[in-house]
């Protein structure tokens, strides 16, 4: 598996498009198709900007915090595993009242669904360990898939997503555990 593919898979698990769709579906249900697309485009743009900021700011942030990338990897693994476990719970239970229309693209779609703790911390960690550019590009398929589902997926896809979301969440727990192990085992 190439580095790019490996990172892209991790970000697919961290963003978890199926979970995003399930969490976003209730507010989106009340919106017109055009409003859904607008909100998804806005959410994608904002989330992409946040990921770009994360990968570009990774090294300066770790320097500021006085933390080695290997050590940060352990913390990132803990966050990934925790968020994976969280995503095993029913979707949208923690989102509360959400706005309708384009505002839903900011909250909850961009933050915290597309740009959540797992994805952002993974971006910080991988950008510090590997190439910032490669890391950023690897986030795009996951963000694109999640935004596309949010914009266009019909409600009948809900059962399929309900099966895929916990699977991805469980794999995220495993990926987090793997990250912890590599962080501990590195020099």
């Amino acid at each position: 598996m190439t580095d790019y593919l490996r990172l892209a898979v991790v970000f697919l698990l961290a963003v978890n498009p199926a979970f995003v769709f399930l969490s976003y579906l209730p507010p989106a249900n009340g919106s017109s198709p055009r409003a859904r697309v607008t909100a998804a485009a806005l959410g994608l743009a904002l989330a992409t900007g946040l990921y770009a900021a994360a990968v570009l700011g990774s090294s300066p942030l770790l320097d500021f915090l006085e933390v080695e990338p290997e050590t940060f990897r352990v913390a990132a693994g803990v966050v990934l595993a925790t968020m994976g476990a969280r995503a095993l719970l029913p979707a949208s239970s923690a989102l509360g009242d959400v706005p309708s229309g384009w505002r839903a693209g900011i909250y909850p779609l961009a933050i915290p669904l597309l740009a959540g703790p797992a994805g952002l911390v993974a971006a910080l960690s991988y950008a510090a360990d590997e190439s910032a550019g490669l890391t950023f590009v690897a986030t795009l398929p996951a963000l694109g898939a999640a935004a596309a589902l949010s914009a266009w997926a019909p409600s009948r896809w809900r059962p399929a997503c309900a099966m895929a979301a916990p699977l991805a969440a469980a794999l995220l727990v495993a990926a987090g555990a793997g990250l912890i192990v590599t962080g501990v085992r590195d020099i």
Partner: protein
Amino acid sequence: MWRGLLLTFSFWGIGAVVLRATLIPPQVCPTVTAEAALASADEAALWIERAQRPDGTYLYEYQAPDDIDLGGYNIVRHAGVTMSLYQRAAETGDLRDLPAADRGLAWMTASLYRRDGWAAFQGPAGGDLQLGASALMLAALEQRRIATSDTSHDDLMRELGRFLIVMQQPGGAFLASWRLATAQPDPALRSKYATGEAFWALTLLHRFFPGEGWDRPARAVARYLSLYRDEAEGFDFPPWADQWAAYGLAEMASWPLDEDNVAYARRLAERFGFLVRVESQRRQDWWSNLVHGRQARAAGLGTWGEALDSLHHLASVDPRLAPLREKLAERAACAAGLLAGRQVTEARAADYGSPESVRGAWFTGGITRMDDQQHALSALVRAAPILAATKEERR
């Protein structure tokens, strides 16, 4: 929308604070130059010399706040401390410590046990023969030979080497004690330290007497350490952090190592790097003690530094480990910086009733033991070339 965002950011903020307080506190590695590391090692050597008694033994354990000699003694540690003095001379060419080291050596040669062409350091109290004591005595003689090129102890070195061979098992492992009552090694006793000590001593014997076959038992133990030791001796979190094994592997760098040895060296590098990373996050406060454990004593941190120094040497010679070299240099420098920063300076020593008993030493809970100085000295003196080379490369 704003309420949701505010709540989200609040949760993220709390999470970030929790992570910062637990998993990712700052890693502080005080900067130390090669010159400062050598000066720190000098102070440690001077402490050992001041702590030496006329018979060649050293002050074993000392409690600074009450100025109390806590007594006790350990002949393995005596050999180790003496070795570190010779090692400083070997690494720096500065022979100032030689008289003190020779007094320590004389105390050992006065209580040798000889049999069937081999010799072991028994200690004046008699009793069963400890592998570690003889292995470190041999290592001390080897460092002395590097420092002085004096061949007068070559025969004794061979005799000690033959004792190590007596203690070696067919699979390369070592038994830890030779029982006088049965005139045989005790089959039930192994030591997590002595195997690596004997390994290193054997590899150095091959350096001085290359045609005599000392490399065969050394390779056998290298294979045992690389493949079987952790499981056979029941270490729960392998690999056992064995700095003596790292010394031995570094000495074998140009033999060269086989692939299993290289994989083992890589695992050791990962373990020691992790230990130093964690240590650099520890503070002297109740929260750090609770979450990250207490700061390691110098005898512990020193061994990690020694291992990283050795593995850095290995990575500098063996291209298969070259990718680790830069990280190993960083961690070795960190260990050296932590050690230098924690050493009692002349100014701090002035606050104590007996400043000369405190200056140049490392204390944990107000107590120092002679091997705190031994391992810190060895780590610092061997980190100096790495620090100098790093500085040169940055230019």
